[in-house]
C-alpha cells in the first residue's frame, strides 16, 4: 500500500468526520424589543398570526356593542330606545336596573379549536389576551376564569352545551350563586381553511367571537381572518404571490 496515500486517506476520514459535524452549538435567547416583529411560523400559525387576529376580532366586537349603560336610560324601561340586539331597553326592569349599576358582566367560556392545527400553548394565551382586552373596555367586565371553571365543574355542563337555554340558565344560576351574575356569554372559535397547490399551500386562519345576551338570547358575531402561505422554499412566496403571480393557476 502506498504510504502517502494511506496517510492521506486516514487523515481524510478524520477530516470528513470532523467537517461534517462542525457548526453544532447550544441554545441562546434574547429579549425582543417592542418594535421587533413577531416571528412568522414556518409550519403553523404562530404569534404573527394569532395576535393581530385576536386584536382585530375583539376590537370589532367591542365596536359593535352598545355603549356604556347609564342609569338615566332606564327611567322608562317600557319604551324601546335602541334597535340593537344587545339593547338593554327591552329587558325587564329588574335586569335593566342591575345592568344600570355598571358595566355588563361577560363570561368568556373559552376557545374552541376547530382548525387543522393544534393550538398547543397558544390556546391559554389567546384566552388571556381576549379576556384582558374585554376587561379594558369600559362597557364590560369579564368574570374571572376561575369562577367560570367552578361553575362548569359544578354544573358538569360542556361549554358547547351552553347554547341551549336550559343549560344557559343553569350555568348562569351557578355563577349567580358564586356572586357573579352574568349578562353575556362569549365564545371564541378558531377555524382554518387549507388550499393545497403542488408543494405550496395557503391556509386561512379565522377567529370568530360570538357574544350571547343571557337575558334575551340574542347574539352578536364578529370574526377576523388572516391568510398565510406555506412553501417548501423561500422562492415560493414570490412564485405564488409575488412577481410571478402563479397562485391563481
Amino acid at each position, binding site marked *: *500500500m*502506498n*504510504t502517502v*496515500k*494511506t*496517510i*492521506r*486517506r*486516514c487523515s*481524510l*476520514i*478524520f*477530516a*470528513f*468526520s*470532523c467537517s*461534517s*459535524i*462542525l457548526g*453544532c*452549538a*447550544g*441554545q441562546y435567547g434574547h429579549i425582543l424589543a417592542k418594535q421587533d416583529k413577531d416571528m412568522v411560523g414556518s*409550519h403553523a400559525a404562530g404569534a404573527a398570526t394569532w395576535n393581530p387576529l385576536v386584536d382585530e376580532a375583539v376590537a370589532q366586537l367591542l365596536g359593535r356593542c352598545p355603549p356604556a349603560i347609564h342609569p338615566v336610560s332606564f327611567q322608562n324601561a317600557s319604551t324601546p330606545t335602541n334597535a340593537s340586539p344587545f339593547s338593554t331597553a327591552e329587558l325587564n326592569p329588574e335586569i335593566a336596573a342591575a345592568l344600570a349599576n355598571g358595566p355588563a358582566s361577560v363570561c368568556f*367560556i*373559552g376557545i*374552541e*379549536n*376547530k382548525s387543522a392545527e*393544534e*393550538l*398547543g*400553548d397558544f*390556546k391559554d394565551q389567546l384566552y388571556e389576551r381576549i379576556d384582558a382586552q374585554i376587561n379594558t373596555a369600559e362597557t364590560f367586565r369579564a368574570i374571572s376564569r376561575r369562577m*367560570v*371553571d367552578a361553575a*362548569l*365543574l*359544578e354544573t*358538569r*355542563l*360542556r*361549554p*358547547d352545551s351552553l347554547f341551549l337555554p336550559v343549560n344557559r340558565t343553569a350555568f348562569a344560576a351557578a355563577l349567580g350563586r358564586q356572586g357573579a351574575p352574568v349578562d353575556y356569554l362569549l365564545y371564541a372559535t378558531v377555524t382554518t381553511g387549507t388550499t393545497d397547490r403542488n408543494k405550496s399551500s395557503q391556509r386561512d386562519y379565522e377567529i370568530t367571537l360570538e357574544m350571547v345576551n343571557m337575558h334575551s338570547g340574542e347574539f352578536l358575531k364578529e370574526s377576523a381572518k388572516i391568510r398565510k402561505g406555506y412553501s417548501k422554499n423561500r422562492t415560493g412566496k414570490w412564485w405564488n404571490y409575488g412577481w410571478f403571480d402563479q397562485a391563481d393557476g
Partner: protein
Amino acid sequence: MATCHLPNPGLLLLLVVTFAHNAGCARSVATIDSARKAFAMGDLKEAADMLHAVATESAKMTDAAELDMAVVELASGNAAAAESRLRILRDRFDTTPGLSPLHEAAAILTDDTARIFRPAGYEEVMIRTMLAVCSLAGDQIDAESYTLQAINHQAKLAAQAEKNFLNHSDIYQPIAVAPYLRGVLREATHHDYDDATRSYQLVSSVRPQFAAAQADIARSSGGAHSAPGHGVLYVISCVGRGPILQEIVAPTTTAALAIASTVLNSATNQTNDDTDGPDRSDDDDEPIALPNIASVKVPEVVIPNSPLATVGVLVNGAAIGTTETLTDVGELAILQNTAEMPWTIARAVIRRVTKEAAVATVGDSLGLEGTAGSLFHFAAASAWSGTEKADTRCWGLLPREIQVLRAELPAGIHQIHLMPLGYGGNPLATGVVNTVTITDGRNQYLIVVAPTEQMHVVTSDQTPTNSGTVTDSGTVTDSGTVTSTTAPTLSTTPVAFSIAN
C-alpha cells in the same frame, strides 16, 4: 547486524490509553447492571447507591446513570427530586451538540463509547413524559407543559426523520402516553374538551389496541369529565423491566458496507478534487476497497424477563379492572435499534478501516516488510480492534410498558388495592393498599412503578388519611407517599382479573 526498531511512542501511548479506557468502562457497565438488578429486586437504596457510584466513577456513564437515578427517585416517592433531575438532563441533552468533533474523532480511534451519550429519540420523548408523570405525582404544576413538550418533541423528531433517507416509519415511532396525559389534563379543565378529543384521537391512531381510547373519545366529544359528585382516579403504572442494550457480534450487512463505502469514497473523492493536477496518478481513481470485515460488535436490545403483565385494581374490595398498555417501550427500543443498525455497523466498519490503515502506515514507517510486516499488521490491528466495545449506554430503568386505568369514583375516601398480576391473570403478590381521597370533578393520580412484582406506589395525595396507610416497609417522603408490595399485613383477596392479550 539486525536493526532494532523501537515502536512508535505515539502508537504505544494510544494502545495504553485505549486499554485503560476500556477497563474502566467495563467496570462501570457491570455496576450499572447490578444497580438495575437491585432496582428490580425492590432494593431502591442499593440501586441508588450503585448508580451514584457509577455516575461518580465514569464520566461516560454519568448521564445514563442519572436517567436511571430519576426512576429510582420516583419509585422512592421523591417525585420532586426525580422531576428536578430529569429537567436538568432534558436541558443538557437539548443543548449538547448533535455531534462533537473531538469525541467523534476519539470514537474512530477507540469505539462508540467515546461518543457523547445522547438518548435515543424515544428516550428523549420519554424524558418529557416521565417529567409529566413526576409532576402528576408531585405538585402537578408543570405537568401540562411537559406533555406539550413531549408532543412537540415528537413532532420535531418526525420532521427530522422525514428528512433522513431512512424509512420514516421505521425511525420515528410516536408514543401514545404523551398525548394521552395531555388529553387527561385538558379534560380535567372542564372547558377544553376539544383539546382532549384531539389528544385521545391521536392516542387511538398511534395505538389502536388501546381500547379505552374509544370511551375517552366518546366522553370528551359528547359527555362530561365525570358525573356530578364524582371524581376520577388514574392509575398510571410503569410495568416490567424495560429494554437494555447488550453487546453482540453482528455480521456486516450489505446496507452497512454500502454506507461505509459511500462515506469513505466520498472523502477520497473530495481529496482528489482538491489535489487534481498534471501529476495526478491513475490509481487515485480507485475506490477504497473495504477490508474483509465479517463481523463487528454492536448493541442489541434485550428485554429482561419479568413475570408481571399488568396491575389489577380493586376499589373498596371490588375489582374494577386492570391497567391497559398505552406504550410499549420495549417495542420502541427494538424498532429504533433496528432502524439505526446499518449506521452503527457502518461506523464500526469505518473505524476498522481507519485502524487497519493506521497500523499499515506504522508498519511501513517501521520498515516492516514481508512476513514480519504481515504479522505486525495482523497482531496490532487485531489487538486494537479487539479492545472495541459496543455502546450499550441507555436508559435501562424505563419500564417495559406504560399502562393506565381510568376509574370514575364517588367523591370521598376510598381504599385502592393494587395487585401485580401475571400473564395468566394470577396475582403475583399480595399487592399494596392505598387510601385515596377523590374530589368532586377532579383527577387523582396513583403512579405505580412495578419492574417486577415488587411494586412501588406514589401518590400526590397529602391528606392525613393517606399518610396513615403506609405499609410497614414503605417510607414517607417530603413530596409524596410511597408504599411497596412487601407488606405482609394485606390479606389476599380472591379476585377475578382477565388479561386481554
